[in-house]
């Protein structure tokens, strides 16, 4: 019975994590400009990865593996937002302006769609 | 040839595809950095060939657990593990050569380097004649 509950909980975590990763990948393809695409990619490596790690932790139970997974989670917790920040910062420094909804900034990033999106 | 044969050889075929993409990149592209990336693809395909051969169905990583288990072959792992690090060291050497070539010729495109060499060796006239031919 407990095995069933553990499996159900971990599968729920794994499935929702995978769903977010797929959503992130979809956003990376479908979003209109660099910054929104970066936003989509951010979902993948923060919440998506964390949920998958949670699912794996439930599977592993109380063991050394769980501690290792926690450490990986802590590492991702710091590095993913930092890398996203660094990429966005570099893009802004390089002069790539975000696209504004009413078209005010649309002229400045005409090269964005085929630019190096991530 | 049945489905089992196709599944049983798929790894090797994909390795060959990767190998040929790498080879084609090296042979057909003139940019030296691109050539090195092509060499890396070729190299990785060889790694995958070795590791695929060492895999045993139902096996596990060759770290003894104390229980009787089937282990995949550890020998290819050893060979490839060292080969990867040697690979990055030689890649670094190749990239250093590219940097020096850039300093000497001011380009990393193969045909431009060739043209510069021709001009230096045979003078402008011969290079121009070569271009007409």
């Amino acid at each position, binding site marked *: 019975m407990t095995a069933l509950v553990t499996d159900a909980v971990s599968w729920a975590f794994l499935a929702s994590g995978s769903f977010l990763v797929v959503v992130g990948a979809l956003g990376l393809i479908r979003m209109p400009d660099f910054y929104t695409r970066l936003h989509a990619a951010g979902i993948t490596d923060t919440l998506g990865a964390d949920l998958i790690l949670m699912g794996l932790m439930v599977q592993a139970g109380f063991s050394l593996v769980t501690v290792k997974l926690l450490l990986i989670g802590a*590492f991702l917790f710091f590095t993913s937002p*930092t890398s996203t*920040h*660094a990429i966005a*910062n*570099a893009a802004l*420094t390089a002069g790539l302006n975000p696209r504004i909804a009413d078209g005010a900034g649309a002229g400045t990033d005409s090269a964005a769609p085929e630019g190096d999106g991530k | 040839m049945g489905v089992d044969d196709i*599944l*049983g050889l*798929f790894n*090797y*075929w*994909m390795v*060959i595809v*990767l*190998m*040929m*993409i790498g*080879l084609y990149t090296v*042979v*057909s*592209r*003139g*940019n030296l*950095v*691109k050539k*090195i990336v*092509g060499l*890396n*693809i070729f190299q990785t395909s060889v*790694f*995958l060939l070795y*590791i695929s051969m*060492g*895999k045993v169905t139902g*096996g*596990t*990583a060759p*770290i*003894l*657990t104390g229980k009787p288990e089937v282990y995949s*072959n*550890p*020998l290819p792992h050893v060979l490839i*593990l*060292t080969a*990867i*690090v040697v*690979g*990055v060291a*030689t890649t*670094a050497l190749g*990239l*250093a050569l*590219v*940097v*020096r070539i850039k300093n000497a010729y001011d380009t*990393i*495109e193969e045909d*431009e380097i060739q043209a510069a060499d021709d001009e230096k060796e045979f003078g402008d006239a011969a290079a121009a004649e070569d271009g007409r031919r």
Partner: protein
Amino acid sequence: MSIAAVIDISLLVFLGLTAFAILKLRALFAVVMLSSVFSLVSAALLVHLDAVDVAFTEAAVGAGISTVLMLATLALTSRREKAPTRSQALPLIVVFLTGLALVYGTLDMPRFGDPQAPIQVHVAPKYIADTQSEIGIPNIVTAVLASYRGFDTLGEVTVIFTAGIGVLLLLAGFIREPEGLRVQTMDHHLVLRVVTKMLIGPIMLFALYVQFHGDFGPGGGFQAGLIFASAFIIYALVFGLENARKAVPGRAVRLLVACGVLLYGGVGFVSFLFGKNYLNYSVLGVDQVAGQHLGILLVEFGVGLTVAAVMVSTFYAFAGQNQPISDEDW
């Protein structure tokens, strides 16, 4: 079709697509990034094929060091590839024919995963059966790497050493003295600097864990050296080459390159002096297993030292070139 086969096939197809994209793209920055992705996917495939040690190495190399070196090269050369001028027909035919010949050759090969394949019945069963009693460590890969085939590994470490010397020789004339450096520190990247400072300690600790836990789990000198080097490289990238050189002078790194190989060879020589074969560690301890433990520990340390030092000095050589790598270039 089993789940394992599905994972295997989809990862291989991903690899193929990535390789094709690398071939087609002409923006070299994207090519380098994709080659990093290629390494990461192949590392996932290697885990799937039970080669955890190899996957570890591939991930450390592909996602870390070789990408950094390629980006440094791009910064020093150019970021775009010229359109091909020559005809592509001949290379295509050659490659196609070679591929066909190779595929024809695979038809005689044992099927994937066959436990009766020649490769599985020759030496490997001996290693798997005897590692516990002869070497006494659980990780068979480390046992084979450092003890059974210690000669091979000594050769490989020497190749890495030689390649490192080659890089230094090629680029040494262009290394600038520290006072002349124009490498910018990423001053406006406050977040990066804070997070990097926080992470460097744990990264080095992890490298040490990988180094000395390699007998029991995946890891060993090669992986640890690469991770250790990445800690220094990330420091140099964020805080500038000048500061990194203050922490670890280039002269010291170059000395360590040689020290690692010397330690490896020296351990072999000590067993020589005790009247045993070169690199036979059995004489180093009170009994065979203790001797093997000590020998493997020392040899792996030598490997880690050389790999880390070669990678760091290679990075110093690239980063110390005339043009600074400024982050505005990216």
